[in-house]
């Protein structure tokens, strides 16, 4: 196969860092080429250069053998390069096909040819197996469909090289499978795909070749069939990485936490938890598997006092906990790593020290007489935790928004674990983190378990559930549809329960389609 694209000696400097350091990369026509690396390794910068959003300080781009200058996205599009960003760029009140033609509307006697455009978009959607309903409004369709719409936009503009920037970060496992199917279809039709990711498992599954970046440098390019997960992980991180979590068998203690017959409505008033009962003992991790949006978040927020419990009881050490409010729940030594760290877990505009006391700011030693803050205690607390949890940079005055995702999560973990929680809720604790940080957070969770905390782990990543849990419950449409010890669990069994049936029928597809009707 010939090279459709060659990047030669690309260097890009930002103040203080070399984001891309002399990177040379060949992309073959018609391949799926994975670009992997930890957060901040320079993958996105490199692709933004290719798409014309940044201009390289040094280096050249050869497209189909010819030297090409790309200084703005329009040129990239004209050269048949399309890019799907992690954050979609869609106009929500418009329909799918209106979004597709936006900016390059087909005209007929001075008017937009809506009918012709819709036909063309529908044809493309069918040809590549994208399964998006062209007349639906964007705000009504699922995230997976919105992503396929972004792909459709690129194809409509005749993209031959498609860059997908961390496309699976926003998808459920089922949607990821669907995306991979689409990628295979595209490849069959001759499209070249550059797939940015930091999830090694996905890269092994879908790519033909894989290039690894680390700290702005290209570590190497491998044929996917000739490499392995541990090898890629080591290339990414620069040292050997434990992909499997090391843990002893759980020392299961007395029952500390339970919910019975819990029912919860979300903020819109829809019943999302429909009678859940659970029990968690000291020293064990109960993993809740399930496709996102099946009531897990509402259950967790009811337990933590953020949502009202409509019916049912929540007990900690035999005492009722429901509807006490978030502050009272916190005081009962319940730690909580929330699903959305930017929305719930951190105040990004506060510095590290102030974030380290969030939720404990009403308690001594952080507040003294007359509600006056104890600056010394706040500072000492932050300094101690930053060191213990290796938060980098170790500057407690620095605004949290400037930290990497991994370090932000460390700040949350440090805060929640520091008060020796009796019961701990970890909701998607490693979402969006790179391998090194995942390893760290996982070992901290196990450490809390071994110290005797009972832990409720909610995760959409089956890998994470399987490697951390001692028992696994599967949640589907607001109910627990199965529970088993870890020894009896496997991916296939859980997968079919997650889709709502023992028969294992593929309901994932239906669910996505349902949004369009």
């Amino acid at each position, binding site marked *: 196969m010939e090279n459709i694209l060659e990047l030669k000696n690309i260097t890009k400097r930002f103040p203080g860092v070399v984001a891309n350091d002399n990177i040379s990369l060949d992309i073959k026509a018609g391949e799926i080429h994975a670009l992997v690396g930890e957060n901040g390794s320079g993958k996105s910068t490199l692709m933004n250069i290719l798409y014309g959003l940044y201009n390289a300080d040094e280096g050249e781009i050869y497209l189909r053998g010819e030297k090409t200058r790309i200084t703005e996205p329009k040129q990239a599009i004209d050269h048949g390069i399309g890019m799907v960003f992690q954050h979609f760029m869609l106009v929500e009140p418009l329909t799918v096909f209106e979004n597709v033609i936006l900016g390059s509307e087909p005209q007929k006697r001075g008017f937009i040819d809506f009918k012709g455009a819709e036909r063309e978009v529908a044809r493309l959607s069918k040809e590549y197996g994208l399964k998006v309903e062209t007349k639906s409004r964007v705000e009504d369709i699922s995230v997976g469909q919105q992503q396929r719409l972004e792909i459709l936009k690129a194809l409509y503009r005749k993209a031959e090289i498609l860059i997908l920037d961390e496309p699976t970060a926003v998808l459920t496992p089922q949607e990821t499978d669907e995306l991979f199917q689409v990628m295979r279809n595209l490849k069959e039709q001759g499209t070249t795909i550059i797939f940015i990711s930091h999830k090694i498992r996905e890269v092994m599954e879908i790519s033909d070749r894989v290039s690894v970046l680390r700290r702005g440098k290209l570590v190497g390019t491998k044929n996917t069939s000739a490499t392995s997960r541990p090898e890629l992980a080591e290339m990414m991180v620069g040292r050997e990485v434990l992909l499997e979590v090391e843990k002893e068998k759980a020392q299961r203690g007395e029952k500390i936490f339970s919910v019975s017959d819990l029912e919860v409505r979300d903020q819109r008033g829809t019943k999302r938890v429909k009678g859940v009962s659970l029990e968690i003992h000291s020293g064990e991790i109960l993993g809740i598997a399930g496709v996102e949006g099946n009531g897990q978040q509402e259950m967790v927020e009811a337990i*933590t006092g953020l949502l009202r419990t409509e019916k049912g009881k929540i007990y900690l050490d035999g005492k009722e906990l429901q509807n006490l409010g978030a502050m009272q729940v916190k005081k009962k030594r319940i730690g*909580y790593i929330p699903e959305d760290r930017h929305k719930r877990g951190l105040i990004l*505009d506060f510095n590290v020290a102030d974030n380290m006391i969030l939720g404990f*700011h*009403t308690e001594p030693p952080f507040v003294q007489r007359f*509600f006056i803050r104890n600056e010394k205690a706040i500072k000492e607390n932050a300094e101690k935790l930053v060191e213990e949890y290796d938060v980098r940079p170790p500057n407690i*005055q*620095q605004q949290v928004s*400037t930290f990497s995702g991994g370090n932000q999560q460390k700040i949350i973990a440090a805060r929640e674990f520091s008060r020796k929680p009796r019961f701990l809720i970890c909701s998607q604790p490693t979402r969006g983190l790179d391998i090194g940080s995942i390893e760290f957070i996982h070992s901290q969770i196990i450490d809390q378990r071994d110290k005797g905390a009972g832990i409720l782990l909610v995760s959409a990543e089956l890998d994470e559930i399987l490697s951390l849990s001692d028992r696994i419950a599967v949640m589907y449409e607001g109910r627990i549809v199965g529970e088993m010890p870890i020894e009896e669990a496997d991916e296939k069994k859980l997968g079919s329960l997650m889709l709502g049936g023992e028969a294992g029928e593929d309901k994932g597809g239906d669910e996505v389609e349902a949004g369009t009707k």
Partner: protein
Amino acid sequence: MKLEQSSLTSREIITPIISVILALLVGAVFILIVGENPIEAYWVLFSNSLIGVSSIAATLQRATPLIFTGLAVAFAFRCGLFNIGAEGQLYVGAMAAVIVGVSFSGIPKVIHLPMAIIAGMLAGGLWASIPGLLKAKLGVHEVINTIMMNFIAYFLTDYLVTGPFHGGRWTPETARVFPTAELSRLFPPTRLNTGIFIAIAAIILVYFILWRTRFGYEIRAVGFNPTAAEYGGISVSRNMVMAMVFSGALASLAGVEQILGVHGRFIQRFSPDLGFMGIAVALLGKNHPVGVFFAAVLFGALRTGAAAMDRLTDVPRELVVIIQALIIMFVAAEELTRRLIQRRRRA
């Protein structure tokens, strides 16, 4: 590196200063159009507002109510609320203070004056609590409600000053408050009064509350990220209401100072948009108490010098209104201002 701290960052100090300089430069063009020498006109403007005891006193006197309204807007803003109702709150506060000021005689000043001030603060705080409650409980936007509350305040005080508390003269004003309820003049004949000390105390208090107390921590947490605040056990609605109450009490002090320290009585629609000027003061002062002080003094100086400039040169006093508007525009267009700076650095 970005630091979150209670002091202003260098950028937060530089952009307002640059904005003021740019505004004065553009203002100079207008002075040239009038046919005067800008340097001379500005000299008259600032020498008559910043040099000499009586000039400085006059400037501080004009700054005093702006400090209060600026702090009011800044405080609410720290909780994520845009209080456009300072104008109404100061009218209601002033009226309450006047009612106490004219209704009790023969009690000592140490009791009467604080009583009048506290009555004003309570009235302003309560007045502002209404949009606060509506926002917290029903999610009604505070901008709409504070604006509407302004009109209610205008007409309510119109009624009170022409009806039940009319002072008997033919002008729409109340009777004069008893001397025991007055804020004493410091440098007669200027109208600078002890209200300036209350203003400075308020600056320190607001700073202390925001960055040194649990209440301030919660206010700022709600302002930056209400969902995370909720996660941390902080009641978003309670803090919003409390922030509005505080903001309203601060705004009302502007009215109280004008009544008990300057006019001695409530005059119908006495405020030259002090509440709305507070928004500009908070904007220029970057919602920081110390910044608010300097912004208020600058605006006070412009107003004070304007009269002299009008008298001694051909430049009309309205020029300072143009300059104020330009300052606000440049501060609001912070990005533009910053680019101008960067380009000059590169060149």
